[in-house]
């Protein structure tokens, strides 16, 4: 069995594709550098991530595939699902080798699987844009916790920067312990050293802006009064608004 070791970054994966084509050796398994090798590994190649190589592969993909398919591959990567890197590897290889676009070739299991995973990730992205709630802190920062199932924050930045361009905000993935901070000009990725106080997802009342509690309360009351009590359907509510998002919703707390 042929095995490639790489650093588990997206650039690393693209570099692996580059290496495979230039050495004409295609791996059956992709593993991280510190993972034990599979039992039947006969041939092992260690991929050294190089921006130049990864850029070339990505550019070639962009030529071969439409923008939305490239975006789909990014989505699959961000799913962080086990073996999604191997799936992506196979997909890219098929895309390069096929004479026509394989985007709609759903008879192929990998094509179908990529589409399915991308859809799930994109749904999660939408969930985040739907259910992230900002809390205003006393220093006028708007803080929003999130703990999405897939690593989708990078995919939501368009939405948030476009919409909340005139307020300072921080969206923090409390599961992956990183986030994005917008300072009225640029958005940057941040990892906070002391993030323990953020992990509950709730700003301490002492840190809240003056009217913050009142607005949370008003929103909660507003959604409650909208409910038509004769037609309660909690199952439907959960289907549209999965439980895992509730802990950050003022209307549910």
């Amino acid at each position, binding site marked *: 069995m042929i095995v490639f070791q790489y650093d588990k970054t997206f650039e690393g994966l693209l570099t692996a594709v580059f290496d495979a084509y230039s050495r004409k050796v295609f791996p059956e398994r992709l593993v991280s550098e510190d993972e034990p090798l599979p039992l039947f590994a006969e041939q092992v190649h260690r991929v050294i991530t190089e921006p130049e190589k990864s850029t070339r592969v990505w550019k070639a993909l962009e030529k071969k595939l439409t923008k939305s398919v490239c975006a789909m591959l990014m989505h699959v990567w961000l799913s962080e699902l086990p073996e999604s890197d191997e799936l992506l590897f196979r997909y890219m290889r098929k895309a390069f080798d096929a004479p026509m676009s394989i985007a709609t070739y759903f008879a192929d299991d990998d094509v179908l699987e990529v589409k399915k995973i991308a859809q799930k990730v994109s749904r999660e992205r939408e969930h985040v*844009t739907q259910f992230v709630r900002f*809390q205003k802190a006393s220093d006028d920062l708007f803080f929003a916790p999130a703990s999405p199932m897939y690593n989708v924050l990078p995919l939501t930045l368009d939405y948030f920067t476009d919409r909340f361009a005139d307020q300072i905000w921080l969206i923090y993935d409390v599961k992956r312990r990183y986030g994005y901070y917008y300072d009225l000009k640029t958005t940057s990725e941040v990892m906070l050293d002391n993030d323990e106080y953020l992990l509950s997802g709730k700003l301490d009342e002492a840190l809240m802006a003056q009217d913050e509690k009142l607005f949370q309360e*008003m929103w909660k009351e507003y959604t409650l009064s*909208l409910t038509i009590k004769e037609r309660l*359907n909690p199952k439907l509510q959960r289907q549209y608004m999965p439980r895992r998002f509730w802990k950050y*919703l003022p209307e549910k707390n």
Partner: protein
Amino acid sequence: MNEHVLDKLKVLAESAKYDISCASSGTTRKNRPGTIGSTEGWGICHSFTEDGRCVSLLKIMLTNACIYDCAYCINRRSNDIPRATLTVQELIDLTIEFYRRNYIEGLFLSSGVINNPDYTMERMVRVVKELRTNYHYNGYIHMKSIPGASRELVNEAGLYADRLSVNIEIPKEQNLKMLAPEKDHQSIYKPMFYIQQGVLASADERKRFRYAPRFAPAGQSTQMIIGATDESDKDILQLSTSLYQRPSMKRVYYSGFIPVNSYDTRLPALKQAPLVRENRLYQADWLMRFYGFRANEIVDDSYPNLDLEIDPKLAWALRHSEAFPIDVNKADYGLILRVPGIGVKSAGLIISSRKHRRITASTLTKMGVVMKKARFFITCGELPTFTVNEVTPEYLRLALMSKKSSRKEPDSKQLSFVFTE
């Protein structure tokens, strides 16, 4: 902002939640996730109520006080209910602060009538104008025009709102007059016409001057209450068709009558809103807008009302079984769209992927086609199975009728989706 506003908010939300009359619009209704929402672009639902409805806009009335006495409305003046009025500033603050917290996509503003239509309308216009000009608010605004409002105020509203609406409420004028004596069709069609003119004039000007102001860029919509009066589905869908022919008319909403004022004997004694009928009307409307159906193909003199047991597309197909089966590997897009169980998305997929290889039953399933229905209406290169003509339309109708047809509880789920495929 203070606790006071909280109380007003509760009163007004309570008044706006029954989806009829001055507080109504379909814009917060959840259609199928990812379909209508994305085509209209402002469909993000930021919350769902416990009855499963989408909350997208801050849907609120300036006031629930009203000088009119419409029989179908909870806010009619003869009802003894708590009344509240928000100030212009309070409405602005609520909108901005909710928006900044990602609670809402925007504002849906309506109102009961205080003093006279223009007095009310003037205040509403002030809210949307200040939001846009002083607060540089770019979120979505839907404003409901008060029936009988003057051209000047409608024109001003159009400069700031994305969408304007005037609700027809009751399709036939004599029925409207019976239930809402202070209203007539003129008071509704006139503002509708002002909006249309505003939209057309602005489109025309923008051809010549790129920076000419936009007027209600999301057009207008309207709504009819279903089941409060005796109109047939044919009356309703014909009216919808003629409305859709007007430039700027984007959506017609149907709202099953919720029996709020049961003491009023002009109203039918309903136990429950006609939700199934409402859903069927949405499906029919959908067919007219996206599937190339004409109203008279869906309902006519021999079938003036929609079949409540099956969806209107299936109903049409069963009445026209001679058109089937069709060959999914050959038929053109328009015909494929007519197959029950095949939606716009899968029809598109069929067209694009049959270039690569023949479509088989299993490809169709993978594309999300509802084979339970579709298989009776198509052939796809495999051994022909039973089609609608072999099993007969009558039998197929029974077989495909919603299992819930012995509805104990008139299907609350119906509210949640519009089209089943």
